[in-house]
């Protein structure tokens, strides 16, 4: 299993690495940093996960499968498992299909309004993941705008399979779009031109050239979406309902509702396996199969690869999807200002007033937590990227694999792990600000690491060697040379981490307390108590904060570094 790559190195390699590690003694700052990072990764990523596994396989202090037998002896939890997998697979395939359609229409068919569609695809990414669910209730629920007002259905039921699938597809297709956009951009259009030149018709070219070249990207997108869907907590919490149990929600209820840690851990463990497997298949197998066609020559396409009729059809489909996205997020905005959704459409500010009265503390808490954890996780991410790309030492692979693990592990599992691991001495952190900060920092370092690794790949190593040659130690080199060069990637990572911290719920919901609460958790509880207007107002404020922060960071980047963050660019 790749997880243990770092440990199962053979002896020779170990000896080799050991030598390099010994050399690090001469650089105590670097050595100390590495030790500190390894310890924190153990403590804040591996330890909680280990705790989940231990508790799951333990009954009365002994190794046992009893928790699993109890949990899955119950038909309801077996159903939850099946439901989670089925919804996960469907979300993965449908989401990827729509993502590909979007990407192909924009990159290859060159439909008009590229900027507009990019914004459409960005909205779900910068919004809390359950806004889709909320809006779907507002549109298609019992008092829904579409179901009740337009279609005059008296007893519409959107809860369960249909609603959840719709919500997840809308929430996650942009992830697929962004992946596949990159894939399609990297496939040189001259290949398609060449195929056309050789006499292929457009459909053959698509089936025999474009699609096969994009297959690794598509597979990668399917796996990523599968992981995201399994990990999703907010949408199923709101939309699944009791007749359609979902694993992540049931694990949460088992822990917080029944206080049954063993059973909850068993459910979490079952959730963990497919997620982690899919993630590692994606990362270590599929992503290595990507075709990259680099010619070094400008790749102007003859632009005839899609017929006008096909382009029009694609454009129409994209407009439809965009309309659905706008409808969903528009209804949130409208809902925030409407007196009573579905009954009284008079415009009012009362929901915002209510939010500022009831939820102001959680707004401040959220800002404090995201504000502190984001830069720390960004810097830590850059640092780890630097270490794993540029330095040789024992545990380099370990750091790489473990720090990326947070991407794979569903938030629910992490949350359960944290309450199991840090609820008694020596690490009694429950209810503190610290536990939230640590959780956010270690959950979002992979973003920084990925960005950092990508940038470092583009920085000629001799630039760092030159600094060292001129007398800089590795600390100075990192501070004065590498870090400044990584700044644009750093800010991109920062934006992403900030967005994720502001919109996180799945792990955080286990860790909030009366003293430290989050807006997302507040929104969730407003939804549960049926205050749609308040939930909408909350969501609007949250998204506005995120947009303003992105604007500020992008302005800084533009003015100071003449670049843009990648999330909004193109």
């Amino acid at each position, binding site marked *: 299993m790749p997880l243990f790559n770092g440990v199962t190195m*053979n002896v*020779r*390699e170990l000896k*080799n690495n050991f030598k390099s590690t010994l*050399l690090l003694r*001469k*650089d105590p700052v670097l050595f100390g940093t590495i030790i500190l990072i390894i310890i924190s990764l153990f403590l804040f990523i591996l330890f909680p996960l280990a705790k989940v596994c231990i508790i799951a396989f333990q009954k009365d202090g002994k190794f046992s499968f009893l928790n699993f037998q109890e949990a899955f002896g119950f038909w309801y939890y077996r159903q939850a498992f099946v439901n989670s997998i089925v919804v996960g697979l469907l979300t993965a395939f449908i989401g990827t299909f729509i993502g590909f359609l979007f990407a192909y229409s924009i990159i290859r068919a060159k439909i008009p309004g590229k900027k507009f569609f990019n914004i459409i695809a960005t909205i779900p990414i910068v919004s809390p993941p359950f806004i889709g669910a909320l809006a779907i209730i507002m549109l298609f629920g019992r008092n829904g705008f579409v179901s009740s007002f337009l279609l005059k259905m008296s007893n519409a039921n959107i809860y369960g399979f249909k609603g959840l699938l719709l919500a997840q597809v809308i929430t996650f297709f942009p992830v697929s779009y962004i992946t596949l956009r990159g894939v399609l951009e990297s496939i040189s259009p001259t290949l398609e031109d060449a195929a056309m030149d050789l006499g292929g018709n457009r459909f053959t070219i698509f089936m025999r050239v474009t699609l096969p070249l994009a297959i690794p990207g598509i597979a990668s997108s399917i796996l990523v979406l599968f992981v995201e869907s399994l990990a999703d907590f907010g949408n199923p919490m709101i939309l699944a309902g009791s007749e359609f149990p979902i694993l992540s929600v049931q694990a949460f209820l088992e822990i917080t509702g029944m206080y049954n840690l063993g059973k909850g851990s068993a459910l979490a463990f079952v959730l963990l396996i497919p997620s982690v497997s899919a993630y590692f298949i994606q990362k270590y197998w599929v992503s290595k199969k990507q075709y990259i066609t680099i010619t070094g020559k400008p790749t102007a396409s003859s632009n005839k690869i899609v017929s006008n009729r096909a382009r029009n059809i694609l454009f129409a489909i994209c407009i439809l999807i965009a309309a659905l996205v706008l409808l969903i997020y528009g209804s949130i905005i409208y809902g925030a200002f409407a007196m009573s959704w579905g009954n009284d459409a008079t415009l009012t500010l009362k929901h915002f007033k209510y939010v500022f009265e009831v939820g102001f503390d959680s707004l401040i808490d959220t800002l404090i937590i995201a504000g502190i954890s984001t830069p720390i996780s960004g810097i830590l991410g850059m640092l780890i990227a630097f270490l794993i790309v540029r330095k040789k030492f024992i545990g380099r692979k370990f750091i790489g694999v473990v720090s990326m693990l947070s991407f794979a592990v569903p938030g629910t599992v992490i949350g359960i792990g944290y309450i199991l691991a840090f609820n008694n001495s020596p690490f009694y952190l429950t209810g503190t600000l610290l536990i939230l900060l640590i959780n956010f920092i270690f959950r979002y370092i992979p973003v920084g690491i990925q960005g950092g690794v990508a940038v470092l790949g583009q920085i*000629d190593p*001799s*630039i760092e*060697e*030159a*600094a*060292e*040659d*001129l*007398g*800089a*130690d590795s600390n*100075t*080199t990192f501070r004065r*040379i590498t870090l*400044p*060069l990584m700044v644009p990637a750093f800010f991109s990572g920062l934006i992403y981490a900030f967005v994720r911290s502001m919109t996180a719920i799945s792990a955080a919901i286990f860790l909030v307390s009366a003293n430290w609460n989050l807006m997302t958790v507040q929104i969730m509880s407003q939804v549960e108590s049926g205050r749609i207007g308040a939930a909408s107002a909350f969501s609007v404020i949250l998204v506005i904060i995120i947009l303003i922060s992105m604007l500020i960071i992008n302005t800084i980047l533009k003015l100071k570094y003449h670049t843009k963050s990648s999330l909004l660019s193109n």
Partner: protein
Amino acid sequence: MSVKLTNITKIFKDQDDSTKEFKVVDDVNIKIYDGEMVTFLGPSGCGKTTTLRMISGFETPTAGKIYIDGECVNDIPANKRNSSMVFQSYAIFPHLTVKENIGFGLTLKKYSKVKIAESVKEIMDIMGLANLGNRQPSQLSGGQQQRVALARAIVNNPKVLLFDEPLSNLDAKLREKMRIEIRRIQKKFGITSIYVTHDQVEAMTVSDRIMIMDKGVIMQIGTPFEVYSNPDNYFVASFIGRANFIPSKIISKTDSTVELNVQGTKQIYNSFVENLNENDDVLIVVRPEGLELSSSKKMLFEGIIKSAVYLGATMEYEIQVDELEDVIIAVSYNPKKEGFFEEGDKINLGFDSKSTHVIKTN
């Protein structure tokens, strides 16, 4: 400041399979004297760059010792070694101005701002960068970037200056100009320098001595004259310039002469490598310009011109000789006077003792 390498060896392990080892540098010994410019020359993968990187401290020798100015530096990390490197890619810090780039090393040494500004200005004047101090690296031409890299290295007053294929990114014209400039600066400051290149012309023009390497092993160390005129072995003879190899056998040998059997005749030569013995199979190295061609005068060989190429200043011939396996290459440097031969012409060719050098058969 001298640089000395004793028994330097570097073994790399295969990244995927660490049981596979590659000896990239094999028992290298050389002493580079104060103020000298020595070039490490060889085909790519010969270990020259690795040797340079061990001197700079970026690689650690698997065995052997490196001395700079008499002090063993094996345990001194790159940033504490008093050597400066000019990188193949220049490695100019893209986020710093020209001035900041050049002053980077001095800033780290915590010199005063005034002192740094003075030193930077002085070196920029010498290097012809006078008005470029506030430019961003992206606004510089290739040649200017090269100068900045050199200025940045020299301004620190290093004990040894290291060049890692510094001219390989420049176009041919600029390369010629810069190698003269590098030599000028190096002599002006009298800095001990080591220069890595795979371009033999570059090596010939900039160096006091050349160390030729192949597969990690030193093939020869000598002045440009020595490596061209008196190559130690087949590799050096064929790597530096072009050469004809004529197989032969030693009949007898004295301290200053060897008597060889060439075409059934006895010939005496006085330029040859050490360790030759009677009855050894040898090769006579004759450079293309050392061959004499004639249509009438009887000489050692007879051949037929296979190709004749007119290059303006010179005439180049390929000649097929029945007794020899390889085609003979000959150059006539004054074809107007020496006469033109055409494809298919029968021709006599030979060489005198002064134009030859005798090496062992591989």
